[in-house]
């Protein structure tokens, strides 16, 4: 196949990516959208194999087989609750692939200075995406502590790191070659930078990090596209980059924080919230069941705790039972609940909760005062009223689901420990709040049995 013909196929592939992404925007067409996009990928790969520059297929076949097996097994075996970790790992593999593509492009003949600059960009973004994603995986899977890790001279260290990275990049571009020592320095520095960038970000801010890394993996592919003069890499990569930025922005807005604030300040490190005092009112599962039985409207507010307790199936069962009992049941989902954008929606979908019962924060808040019972399952910061009225709280200004305005609130909680951000939650001491202590799954099962 001639280069022209291959490029025509790439245009078709790009069109399929566009249609695919468009159809991913609605639940009814999303499956087809993903399929279209994968067909686009397939024809782009097949067309590339006809490129006259490709002489030997031994390595390619070996690598594709290995990659396919690993990817397939990972995708099929992974539990839905571990989805954030999986997405992080896939992100990381995209990042390192772009780094290597940029690196290998150094061996092409007749590279211009512009090409060398884009090679450096793809190596840097690819490298930091790779190690950043690995670290994000470590935090999400709790292989390492998921809280923000901050040390004294961190900002100075990061600043120096960035300076060194820029210096090495400039020195490399002045005398570019595949054997330049600055190349290795750039790779190492970019990888260290990825680690340092994710280290000070706490678990509750992970949705932002995951979307940002997603964006970076696209940008890395885009830069690699410039390095090898390939249109499809540029088009697809930059679309992904833009998509990731939008998600990042949505996540930041949902926390009322700027991106800079999320990236550079450990959560709750500076301010101390006003101490909340009062008495919590525990409730037994039996009593909770009685109240739920009489409720006309019930809304479930899930958080990361639901994922940890694997409680989504019990939640759905309880929801169905209450519905059969005549109550109106909804699931109110905060945009940053969980560890990645839309995390809770996926878990509830796994438990066969129909997506039209999932409502967004802005839809539930105006009518939450008419809800009889709000059941908070493993959510904390996203329902913390201190965000509305305690100016000293580190999460002040963050939009929350105002469950404290519901007629009754049940909070399912393991113990009285504070949330991920380490912020006290006045909700627990509210007049209309009842605490249902214990493992969320067990508590809900008991409630369910009482109702039967």
């Amino acid at each position, binding site marked *: 196949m001639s280069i022209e013909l291959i490029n025509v196929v790439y245009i078709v592939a790009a069109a399929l990516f566009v249609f695919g992404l468009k159809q991913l925007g609605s639940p009814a067409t999303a499956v087809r959208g993903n399929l279209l996009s994968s067909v686009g990928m397939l024809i782009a790969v097949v067309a*590339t194999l006809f490129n006259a520059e490709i002489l030997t297929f031994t390595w390619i076949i070996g690598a594709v087989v290995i990659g396919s097996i*690993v*990817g397939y097994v990972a995708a099929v075996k992974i539990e839905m609750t571990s989805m954030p970790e*999986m997405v992080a790992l896939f992100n990381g593999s995209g990042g390192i692939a772009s780094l*290597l593509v940029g690196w290998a492009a150094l061996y092409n003949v007749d590279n211009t200075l512009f090409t060398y600059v884009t090679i450096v960009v793809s190596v840097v973004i690819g490298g930091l995406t790779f190690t950043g994603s690995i670290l994000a995986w470590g935090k999400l899977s709790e292989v390492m502590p998921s809280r923000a890790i901050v040390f004294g001279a961190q900002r100075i260290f990061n600043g120096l790191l960035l300076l060194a990275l820029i210096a090495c990049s400039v020195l490399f571009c002045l005398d570019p070659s595949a054997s330049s020592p600055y190349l290795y320095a750039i790779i190492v520095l970019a990888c260290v930078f990825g680690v340092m960038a994710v280290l000070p970000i706490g678990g509750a801010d992970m949705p932002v990090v995951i979307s940002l890394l997603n964006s970076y993996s696209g940008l890395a592919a885009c830069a690699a596209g410039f390095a090898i003069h390939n249109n499809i890499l540029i088009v697809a990569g930059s*679309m*992904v980059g*833009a998509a990731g930025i939008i*998600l990042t922005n949505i996540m930041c807005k949902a926390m009322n924080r700027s991106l800079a604030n999320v990236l550079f300040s450990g959560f709750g490190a500076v301010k101390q919230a006003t101490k909340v005092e009062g008495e919590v009112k525990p409730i037994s599962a039996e009593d909770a069941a009685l109240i739920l039985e009489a409720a006309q409207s019930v809304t479930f507010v899930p958080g990361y705790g639901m994922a940890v307790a694997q409680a989504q199936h019990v939640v759905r069962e309880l929801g169905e039972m209450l519905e059969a009992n005549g109550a109106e049941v909804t699931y109110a989902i905060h945009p940053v609940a969980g560890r990645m*954008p839309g995390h809770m929606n996926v878990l509830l979908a796994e438990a066969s909760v129909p997506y039209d019962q999932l409502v967004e924060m802005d839809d539930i808040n105006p009518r939450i005062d008419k809800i009889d019972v709000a059941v908070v399952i493993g959510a904390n910061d996203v329902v913390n009223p201190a965000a509305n009225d305690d100016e000293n709280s580190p999460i002040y200004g963050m939009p929350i689901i105002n469950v404290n305005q519901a007629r009754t609130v049940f909070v399912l909680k393991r113990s009285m420990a504070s949330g991920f951000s380490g912020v006290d939650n006045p909700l627990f001491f509210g007049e209309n709040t009842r605490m249902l202590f214990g493992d969320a799954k067990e508590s809900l099962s008991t409630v369910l049995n009482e109702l039967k």
Partner: protein
Amino acid sequence: MEAVLLGMVLMLSIFLGFELISKVPATLHTPLMSGANAISGITIVGALISAGSDLGTMSTVLGAIAVAFATINVVGGYLVTNRMLSMFKKKDSGPRGGKA
């Protein structure tokens, strides 16, 4: 000149990406992200060329490792997205146990 043309392509694609994504409902954020992530595996195209063209052992090895990683990204990304999306059901459609 080529750099300018590529820059043009870049600019248009970024705007297209913004347009395509900005109206996606929160429910689909995760599949959207992993679907987009699978697309970023497009870097496999570059990897294939490096792995297959005879520009020395180093280039081939780098390319081959890149192919392996990019394939993980592509295959895993699309499959897992499909797995997630096929769970999203509208009320009273698909096989469900019915109401108790």
